């Protein structure tokens, strides 16, 4: 059998998006609640809409269990947003639970073998929640409000209106007039301003329209601020603010004639948005028809000026179907295929270049050569555009992973009984889809580690004079053609002395050698296999659990990982990754007549040294570069290539400096050939595990060339303790020399 069919794939990815949006909304609500703020009703509303869309989607695709769960959840969310239920930690727990359940259900969907996800316990919880004491929808007086307003409000709007009055806010009527063509932009802008003051309760079409090409709206706003301030804040052409007499505030204020709203459908020209709408259109079709759209939800511009009550389901389905066709989802393997083709075209192009060169040697072909050269240049330009375009298609924001991690933080934090503040930055940083996928597990592991083992218990923290809540930072940013992801906690940090003891106990290093190691090298032991067992975890407060696995995963992505820790202050892991794996820039080198590629993102620089610059310290060749001592590695020796010295020129020794931060080594090679974009191809199951080789690629003329796995080579070099010792000794020597200097 082939995999799930297309429609169900479409359903899955669409549903996944919706669930992720739901999750984002919930996380934000959770943050607000924990910060003790009033929750933003828009968020709850967006969550409600997400579940509603999911329900529609699920029934469209016969995912009955998902439809059933969304139906139940929808009722709960409806009750929550109408204030019939209180949004507390218990409710949020159930909601987060549902997100997890949805995800499990989606994972099981389309796989015949998968056992159906048991959602009864969750349904019971949802039911229990709804059964719980109803929060009283304070019967705040709506006196003073014109019946003509009340009459057109939906239940939800009326609830928000009451809420606002209960909170002692004043009510304002903002009259705005928009140009028919620019209404979507105008409303968004105005909405943004008004949200700063309070809550937008509803938009009503105004009866006193001035002309045919304008639309007048009355917007009902609840705010604590005085009239003058709001009027100044939203000041704009065609906008006037009135305070409604019924407001409970100071009671006074300019009482304006109540608006006379038109009947909902009477005069509501629905300006079709001229701009292409983003594909999240399902949110538009909900029974209550909320006008407010989250800007971050993709900003489907407010399309109808009047509330259109009770859309029926036929509408919903029509719109869902339409949204499916807005984006094309492509299997990654198809993109890989295209990428391969482009790579092969690149090879063809290189070959053409070769032919051109030969043609140039001939006489009498001048015009044609020039022609050909021109075409070839155009082709290579287009080819690189094509390549870049394809790479862009593969890019996804890291936010996808970060959102998942945010849920994990919440969950793990609760399990461990620790209060964790997670701060995320750089979610919009983009990486190749493949890398993002491969990255989620290592990141998950690191975040778990940070919470489980890094962050101390509440009591410990207070005793240490730290804030009671632990902090975990997730940061991503681009640096050149690399992306750096940092996971930092403000926990207890790692004690290098304990790590050293464990390393000695595990015979990763002898006691004599260990004494020579610097703290950085010692902390790096956490990346060694064998540093993973529980026993170690408890005896050294557990950081570094499974870090070897994390490291292996990262280096498989041609990435590197660095750790920086301070006892009592916290730990920071930094992962550096190439932006894409499919095509990378490589430095082409030769050694012993064999050609290799080195990923350019791990090359710091290439230098040329003389034999006389090389010093031998305890059997290890080193050079000194800008005050730093670098161990030298001969690629030919590491790879056991023939030791052909014919290419060896003591006056011109090429050294490629590779590595990251404190781990730098110089690779001695015979020749630097040049830089080139290369398409990386896997070596297959049998050769994948050759250490130091990351893959293969094709250079022109049908030559297959190996790509080095720099991170493994550097490790290999540095874990040979004599190298480290030599470098340390050298460094110590300089240290000693310093005080005696001038």
């Amino acid at each position, binding site marked *: 059998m082939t995999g799930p069919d297309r429609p169900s794939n479409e359903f899955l990815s669409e549903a996944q998006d919706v669930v992720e949006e739901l999750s984002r909304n919930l996380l934000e609500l959770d943050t607000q609640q924990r910060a003790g703020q009033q929750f933003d009703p828009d968020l709850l509303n967006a969550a409600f809409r997400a579940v509603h869309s999911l329900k529609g989607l699920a029934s469209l695709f016969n995912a009955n269990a998902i439809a059933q769960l969304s139906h139940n959840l929808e009722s709960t969310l409806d009750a929550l947003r109408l204030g019939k239920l209180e949004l507390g930690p218990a409710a949020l727990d159930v909601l987060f639970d549902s997100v997890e359940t949805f995800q499990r259900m989606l994972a099981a969907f389309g796989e015949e073998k998968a056992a159906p996800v048991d959602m009864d316990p969750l349904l019971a919880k949802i039911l229990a929640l709804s059964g719980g004491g109803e929060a009283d929808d304070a019967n705040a007086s709506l006196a003073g409000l014109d019946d003509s307003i009340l009459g057109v409000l939906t239940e939800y709007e009326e609830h928000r209106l009451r809420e606002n009055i209960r909170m002692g806010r004043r009510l304002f009527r903002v009259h705005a007039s928009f140009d028919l063509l620019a209404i979507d932009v105008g409303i968004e802008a105005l909405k943004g301003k008004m949200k700063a003051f309070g809550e937008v309760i509803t938009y009503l079409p105004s009866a006193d329209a001035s002309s045919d090409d304008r639309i007048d709206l009355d917007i009902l706003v609840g705010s604590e601020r005085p009239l003058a301030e709001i009027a100044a804040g939203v000041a704009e052409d065609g906008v006037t603010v009135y305070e409604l007499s019924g407001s409970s505030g100071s009671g006074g204020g300019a009482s304006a004639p109540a608006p006379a709203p038109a009947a909902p459908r009477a005069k509501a020209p629905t300006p079709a948005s001229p701009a292409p709408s983003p594909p999240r259109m399902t949110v538009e079709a909900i029974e209550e028809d909320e006008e407010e759209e989250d800007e971050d939800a993709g900003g489907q511009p407010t399309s109808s000026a009047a509330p259109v009550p009770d859309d029926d389901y036929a509408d919903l389905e029509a719109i869902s179907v339409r949204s499916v066709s807005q984006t094309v989802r492509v299997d990654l393997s198809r993109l890989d295929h295209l990428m*391969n083709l482009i790579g*092969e075209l690149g090879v063809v192009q290189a070959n053409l270049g070769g032919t051109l060169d030969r043609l140039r040697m001939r006489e009498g072909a001048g015009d044609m050569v020039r022609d050909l050269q021109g075409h070839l240049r155009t082709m290579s330009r287009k080819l690189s555009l094509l390549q870049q375009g394809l790479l862009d298609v593969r890019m996804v924001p890291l936010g996808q992973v970060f959102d998942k991690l945010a849920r994990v933080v919440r969950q793990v934090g609760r399990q461990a009984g620790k209060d964790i503040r997670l701060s995320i930055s750089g979610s919009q940083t983009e990486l190749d889809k493949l890398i993002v996928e491969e990255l989620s*597990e*290592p990141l*998950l*592991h690191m975040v*778990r580690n940070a919470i489980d083992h890094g962050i101390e218990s509440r009591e410990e923290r207070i005793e240490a004079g730290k804030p009671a809540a632990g902090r975990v930072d997730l940061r991503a940013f681009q640096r050149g053609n690399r992306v750096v992801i940092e996971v930092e906690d403000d926990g207890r940090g790692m004690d290098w002395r304990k790590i050293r003891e464990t390393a000695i106990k595990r015979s990763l290093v002898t006691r004599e050698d260990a004494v020579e190691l610097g703290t950085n090298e010692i902390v790096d032991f956490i990346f060694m*296999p064998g540093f993973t067992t529980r026993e170690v975890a408890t005896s050294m407060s557990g950081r570094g659990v*499974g870090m*070897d*696995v994390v490291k*292996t*995963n990262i280096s498989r992505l041609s990435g590197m990982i660095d750790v920086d820790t301070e006892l009592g202050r916290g730990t920071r892991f930094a992962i550096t990754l190439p932006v894409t794996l499919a095509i990378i820039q490589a430095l082409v080198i030769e050694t012993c007549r*064999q050609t290799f590629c080195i990923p350019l993102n791990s090359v710091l620089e290439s230098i040329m040294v003389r034999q006389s610059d090389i010093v031998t310290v305890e059997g290890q060749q080193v050079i000194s570069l800008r005050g730093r001592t670098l161990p030298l590695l001969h690629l030919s020796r*590491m*790879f*056991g*290539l023939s030791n052909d010295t014919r290419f060896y020129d003591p006056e011109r020794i090429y050294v490629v400096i590779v590595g990251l931060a404190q781990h730098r080594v110089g690779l001695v090679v015979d020749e630097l050939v040049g830089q080139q974009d290369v398409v990386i*191809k*896997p*070596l*297959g*199951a*049998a*050769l994948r*595990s*050759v*250490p*130091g*080789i990351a*893959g*293969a690629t*094709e250079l022109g003329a*049908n*030559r*297959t*060339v*190996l790509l080095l796995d720099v991170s*493994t080579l550097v490790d*290999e070099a540095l874990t040979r303790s004599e190298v480290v010792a030599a470098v340390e000794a050298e460094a110590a020597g300089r240290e000693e020399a310093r005080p005696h200097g001038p």
Partner: protein
Amino acid sequence: MARDSNDLWNALARSGEAVATEEDYEHGYKREVRGDLRQYVAFRVSGESYGLSIDQISEISKVFETTPVPRTADFVIGIGNVRGRVIPILDLALRLRLEPAPRGRDARVLIVHHDDELYGMVVDEVLYVVTIAPEELEDAPGAIPGARGEYIKALTRLEDDILIVLELSTVLQTRDFVRAEHRGRTLKVTKGGLA
């Protein structure tokens, strides 16, 4: 119209009946209908005849350029590019611990597939294709002395030859590809192991 004939064809196929093909008619419809006959490709390695089932072989190619891969076992010649895919190429004589014969003009690369991966195996010469019934295969790898037994699936006696059928799962045992001192440094990471 086309629909009807298709249906008939499908119905026959479903019912498990052999459907006569053009070829059958041309050959007088005498072809023996036996489902368990298998075709083998015979090839020579260091003077001995070996065979592989024809459906394990995806193509036979002339010897092409390869790139050596450091840190691999002696029988790994290197990697080569076959229709855009990079695949390992091995010297079958060295793999079977036979005395390698000088590689002549008849040498070929058998591109075989095993476990969803392609491998190239260099042999001295491709001989012929032969149809063998299962009962003609002797399940007696013990007949071949020495450690080579593990690479042998079966033997079969042909009129003037003994054909040794190779066991690909041992010949292509992936851990043997990397030289012993470089094994085990990279770890297998199981999916979900971190959850």
